[in-house]
């Protein structure tokens, strides 16, 4: 009995360690469908459509504010308004909140699922060139020196949900729109749901 309990604890610890050290875990969606080309006619629910909304903030125009609980990304416009995009967020793991900067931007990024991710989802490709079927979608904006990024998706139906592992996903049309509006160096503020 004690041995069994030990074994259970060991296995749990090992899995926990794997998850916590897994960089790639955060790099891309979990239930990925590499190769799936998104339906161009896919229409987002109004809640997730890009729109100008009332937004009161002391942050300067051009700042990005991400609210993971709301599944919204705001690009501050000043004058009490912001451009709001619907996003998909991480299911777990990414509890970090605070300020980052966009350190690099890439069009149609390649995807290299890290070994930890391959271990969990052995069917994933080892390398996938950028393109419409790539889970990272049309654009990626890298956040500081972290493994997190704001990127597109080949699964528009996951916007508004929490299924990836920490990245912030927008539909391709939106991520392309955002990409053209923000330079490298843009401030990105991440806000999480308060902890009880």
């Amino acid at each position: 009995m004690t041995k069994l309990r030990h074994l259970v604890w060991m296995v749990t610890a090992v899995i926990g360690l794997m998850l916590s050290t897994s960089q790639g875990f955060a790099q891309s969606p979990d239930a990925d469908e590499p190769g799936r080309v998104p339906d161009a006619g896919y229409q987002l629910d109004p809640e997730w459509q890009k729109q100008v909304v009332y937004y009161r903030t002391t942050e300067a125009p051009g700042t990005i504010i991400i609210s993971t609980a709301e599944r919204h990304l705001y690009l501050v416009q000043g004058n009490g308004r912001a451009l709001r995009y619907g996003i998909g967020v991480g299911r777990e793991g990414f509890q970090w909140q605070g300020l980052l900067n966009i350190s690099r931007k890439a069009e149609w990024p390649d995807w290299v699922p890290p070994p930890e991710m391959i271990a969990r989802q052995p069917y994933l490709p080892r390398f996938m060139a950028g393109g419409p079927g790539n889970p990272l979608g049309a654009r990626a904006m890298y956040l500081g020196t972290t493994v997190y990024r704001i990127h597109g998706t080949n699964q528009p139906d996951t916007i508004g949900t929490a299924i990836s592992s920490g990245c912030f996903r927008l539909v391709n049309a939106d991520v392309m729109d955002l990409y053209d509006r923000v330079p490298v160096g843009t401030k990105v503020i991440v806000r999480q749901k308060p902890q009880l």
Partner: protein
Amino acid sequence: MRTFRGGLTIGLAVAVLVAAAAITYERYDTRTLKRTQRRGEVLCGVNKGLPGFSIPDDKGNWTGFDVDFCRAVASAIFDDPSKAKFVPLDASERFKELQNRKVDILSRNSTWSMSRETNYDLYFPAVAYYDGQGFMIPRSRNIDSALDLNGSKVCVQSNTTTQLNLADYFRANNMKYTEMKFDKLDDVVKAYDSGQCDTLTSDASQLYALRLNLSKPNDQVILADIISKEPLAPVVRLRDDDWMMIVKWTLYAMINAEELGITSKNIDEALKSKKPEVMRLVGTEGTYGEDLGLTKDWAVRIIRHVGNYGEVYDRNVGSGSQLKIPRGMNQLWNAGGVQYAPPIR
């Protein structure tokens, strides 16, 4: 002679007492909570039918933002949201009916203004919903600011504050417009839907409701600009401070709960929290509920039965409803809006 005088004195004294009691009754009602508790239900004046705010279905079940607020008050007192009884009231009679004690509370999309407090001896404890006048435009116009509306044909209902606000806004911003006014709201909507106007103006909450009935709702957008102040608030009688405090802190408990991340789903987890702000709200620390004349778990009851402010908003008028009104000004103060509750401390 002596007996006559004595009788007169007693008679006068009684008359004065009765008059004083009558005046006191008339001027001061400080027993709403006691009467509510004795009755076993909260009488709540609501709109007869306003989608998202208060509307009965064919079985007489009420839903809406205003309705849920009353259920929150009933939950705080009775630990039972079904102890809220809804009394539909017309706009013209609502304040009189509250004054005449036909209801304990008015939760009926009423704009808080100074004259309403002073003229009716009423009190608006706190803003439940920040509404205001906005503009709906066809998506194809590709405009995202009301300041781009120069030269527009504007559909508006005549003889309303809306019409006056419209004139003020365009004048203040040096813009021209052609007024397309109609007596009935239905005609305003028809005119817009048939393309007779470039934009339609009304209170934002109403624009979202009207949009549902247009021929192509998805082709319409409502601009983020709000050009007037319409703070919607519950109403109670003036000078019944104990009751007013319950109504006010019911709303503030819901707003604070959202800010602290406490929902109807994680309320049991919140009861185990060691975070001081959470502990004070759920009553594991302090005597805030008792000090209000209620129980320790007053806020827990509200959150468990009705939910926090965001849950109530989303379910009735927000993303989980047909209306899908963005939170806008009604978002919390630290998340882009102006909803702000004083701390429980």
